[in-house]
């Protein structure tokens, strides 16, 4: 499995191809459409992260030492960004996730998507992803 850093570098490279915001947005929208939907059983109140504008559902599982995330949103642009976040963080070790950053979102020119004023739930989602990782990490060490 590629490291978080490698995946983020790939994404940056991928977005380098686009010169215009419109192409970028179209790509994000495409990613949003292809995001594997969260299992219906997890699309419930307790997995919801409420933004003022759009909302996000996030679920995490621990499998073979890695965290597996699935997520969804009611807004397609938000979903596209989620697809990127899931791609970088999912299937990684908890300690790696806890220490990773999301600077790549800035670097692909979508900084405003993770801004607190957007109120789209994404910032809280990143926080929640890390909290899950942290929880799995401590569970894991306790078990050992």
């Amino acid at each position, binding site marked *: 499995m590629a490291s978080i850093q490698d995946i983020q570098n790939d994404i940056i490279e991928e977005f380098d191809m686009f010169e215009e*915001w*419109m192409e970028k*947005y179209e790509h994000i*929208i495409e990613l949003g459409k292809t995001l594997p939907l969260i299992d219906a059983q997890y699309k419930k109140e307790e997995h919801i992260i409420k933004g003022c504008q759009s*909302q996000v559902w996030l679920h995490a599982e621990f499998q073979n030492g890695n965290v597996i995330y699935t997520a969804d949103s009611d*807004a*397609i642009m938000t979903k596209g960004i989620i697809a990127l976040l899931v791609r970088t963080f999912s299937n990684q070790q908890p300690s790696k996730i806890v220490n990773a950053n999301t600077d790549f979102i800035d670097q692909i020119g979508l900084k405003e998507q993770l801004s607190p004023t957007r109120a789209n739930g994404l910032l809280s989602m990143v926080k929640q992803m890390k909290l899950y990782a942290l929880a799995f990490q401590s569970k894991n060490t306790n078990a050992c």
Partner: protein
Amino acid sequence: MLNIAKIRAQFPALHQEVHGHPLVYLDNGATTQKPQAVIDAIQQYYAEQNSNIHRGVHYLSQLATDAYEASRTCIQKHLNAQHSHEIIFTRGITEAINLVAHGFRSVLKIGDEIIVSTIEHHSNIVPWQMACDATGAKLQIIPMDENGALKMDAFHALLSEKTKLVAVNHISNALGTINPIKEMIDAAHQVGAAILIDGAQAAPHLSIDVQELDADFYCISGHKMYAPTGIGALYGKEKWLNKIPPYQGGGEMIATVSFEETTYADLPHKFEAGTPNIAGGVAFKTAIDWLNEIGLENIAQYESKLLQYASERLSEIDGFRLIGNAPQKAGVISFMINDLHPYDIGMILDKLGIAVRTGHHCAQPVMDAFCIPGTVRASLAIYNTKDDVDRLVEGVKKAKSMLS
């Protein structure tokens, strides 16, 4: 005929590019841009008159006090209130409503009722919920029909001798519905209830006569009517303002203070604790004078034609769903495109230099009633043109093709 180009030219903020496109500003329901005259008034106040009001014996303090009080008189005339002490300066509508809702805690008892409507802004819901929680009074809700008009039968049925106060907006910010407030005021008075009108969205578009309406309270917000942010006004009938206790304690609002007893100042100062937004107050007058120079009748006429045009143009778009189609509407067009998320549309419009509001517009119960996550809302001001509308229509088409 109004010369819109000339009016538009007075708004510096409108003349800029956003993401490489000339700005189209259609978020006036949230706040309007400010004409140069208002910007100048703020600057002039600080450059020439700045001083604390109602306190100093010195020259500047007198100047500032006079300017601030002139604004109060201007608002009194503008709303046709009987007395200038019936005008209380506030931060805006939110503070005005909180002031009244807080005061009503001394009036309300267990079993009393307050009536609000489904189509209120959160600021005309939450303060009443808090007052109900504190007193054991009950909140009753006027439902709306599928067009976003209030169900008046239901309203009349809710009124009873238990009703102590009715709080409704004059025009809904989420849907643009103009409520039949005269009928509502009269009906509330029939059962002996007071009534508060949230005029946030009405004051920029309509002329208001509080005596003719016979409203007990009427709130306006400066920033939605070309004045600065952080200044608004509460009109209250003298008898009510005398009856309810002060909202905040502090300087300015007292007559005498000792540790045994403090007596409160007369109206309006009883409700104006602390140093207010003096510059905002002064510039509020400038904005109202500016509005009156154009004439609210002219404004209403022009905007209503533009709203008509916007509705027609937008409905050309396949999948356009107008949210809120009450017979009487002003200022606002709220819509969806098929089931596309308003947030997605708004983000693409932003990239095209078009400012609209997306989301629930602080009116979640309305969106819940329509079973939608929110709407795209274009809200008009006097400086908007058909060109703005055309750009919006093009932008929405573009967003639709990108998102579908």
